[in-house]
């Protein structure tokens, strides 16, 4: 890792108001809007309360969208010739990738941590303290699959507006992935096939595992979200690989 480079990358990210708003402030704002409603927020849900559930969901969304945004810049920057410039230095490609990964995971972690801090301050609770750490950990690891998605879109369309589109699609995936509001019936059946469904279901799984089946919040059997995540992660990885190859061939 190159500390100077990482430092400048953080500065750039913070200076970019658009990115800052979408990846750091929006998830927190959405938690405050949807999660902090007194009428149902305090109700017990599994090992925690409703606030904890909404907090974990919004943090997962924030982490994923931060990862997409930063991973996407890897692609657009390399297309703009910055990759060639870096190739002329003694820094190895591995150092480049690990520096970017570090920035992406740190921003994702900050985004999620902000929501968790707000949650803790506004009454999100669990009966088990380790649930905080477990949910946060699953969020961080799971968000990595969206890095491939960001790189793929960036490489395929080579432009910053494409990244805007990629982030926009994430909102759609989130709605359709049962992230923002509980879906039911046919919508929920379709949701099981969308990319964010498995990820957020895994984040919630530990909290909801003992919720009785007759309530609307009972989790799917574990294999459903796991299969969803594995398949989508594999799909995004292949997509990123093919898009990268295609972009290289055109150079």
């Amino acid at each position, binding site marked *: 890792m*190159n*500390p*100077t*480079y990482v430092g*400048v990358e953080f*500065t*750039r990210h913070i*200076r*970019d108001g658009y990115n800052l708003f979408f990846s750091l402030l929006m998830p927190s704002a959405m938690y405050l809007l949807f999660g902090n409603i007194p009428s149902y927020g305090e109700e017990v849900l599994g090992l925690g309360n409703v606030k904890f559930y909404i907090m974990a969901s919004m943090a997962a969304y924030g982490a994923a969208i931060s990862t997409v945004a930063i991973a996407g810049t890897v692609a657009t*920057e390399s297309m*703009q*010739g*910055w990759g*060639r*410039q*870096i*190739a*002329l*230095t*003694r*820094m190895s490609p591995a150092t480049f990738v690990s520096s970017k990964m570090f920035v992406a995971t740190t921003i994702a972690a900050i985004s999620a941590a902000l929501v968790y801090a707000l949650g803790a301050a506004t009454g999100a609770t669990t009966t088990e303290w380790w649930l905080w750490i477990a949910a946060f950990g699953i969020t961080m690891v799971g968000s990595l699959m969206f890095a491939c998605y960001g790189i793929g879109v960036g490489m395929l369309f080579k432009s910053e507006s494409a990244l805007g589109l990629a982030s926009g699609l994430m909102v759609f995936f989130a709605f359709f992935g049962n992230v923002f509001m509980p879906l039911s019936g046919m919508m929920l059946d379709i949701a099981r096939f969308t990319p964010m469904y498995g990820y957020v279901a895994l984040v919630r799984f530990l909290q909801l595992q003992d919720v009785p089946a007759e309530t609307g919040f009972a989790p799917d059997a574990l294999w459903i979200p796991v299969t969803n995540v594995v398949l989508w992660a594999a799909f995004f990885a292949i997509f990123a690989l093919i898009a990268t190859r295609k972009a290289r*061939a*055109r150079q």
Partner: protein
Amino acid sequence: MKTLNRTDAVTLTGLHKTFTTPRTKVEAVKGIDLTIHTGQIVALLGPNGAGKTTTVDMILGLTAPTAGTAQVLGLDPHKAVSSGRVSAVLQTGGLLRDMTVYETIKVIASMHQVHGRIDEVMERTGLTPIAKRRVGKCSGGEQQRIKFALALLPNPDVLILDEPTAGMDVMARREFWNTMRNEAIDGRTIIFATHYLEEAQNFAERTVLISRGTVVADGATEQLRQMISGRKVVATMPDARSIDQLMSEEAKPEIEERSGMRVTFRCQDSDGLARELLTRYGAYDLEISAPSLEDAFVQLTEDAS
């Protein structure tokens, strides 16, 4: 080689590069053999699409050759690059618009592990006054100077410039070459690709002409300039008889093209021919032009084949 212990800066042997896309196959470089000694200033001159950038990319290890080898200072290009002994000003992109000038230099310096050279390089390339400006707000000439500064950071023995003045106005271009001259005094090997004959003429001691992926001529710049020194004279003649009369003279020019009374002549002494045409033959709408580099390349390639 003049002395035995002198290493060559760049050695290209049977260099080929073919780009294959699903529909087409483009042979960008079709067999280049070239040796450049250390301390030389060499221009790679050629029209757009001649294969200059592809050749430069192979010297820098950015593109792998389809066949043949490229060596820099006796080393594999990747080794030469990672040891900081060769660096380059690339033609396309290379800078991120939202970074400041200082950030850009600082980041690349950190990648070369040469933090100590930042101030000196910025001073030498005149970037100190605009250090805090965003790259996107810099003019084309300023951006080119930033790239030049990045190339100087590792203090390279071999410096490669790919179309370094593209997009610069005349003033910026002159300023850039003045800065370059100071760098050349240190005994660096400098190789630059250009499609401006004038730049090769003013700056390079040796010019290598590249056209359609091969070297069509290689030698002292002055010598090459002579080869393409003819002039074109275009004029409208009053009648067909005057053309016949002109062509019957002893020092007759060569007719390159004729449509009606509008004739394109090719000759060495364009002033003399113009004087004759205007005073003795009553020609009008006269134009004199130097052959474009593209014309010259077509000429040279035809001569070669």
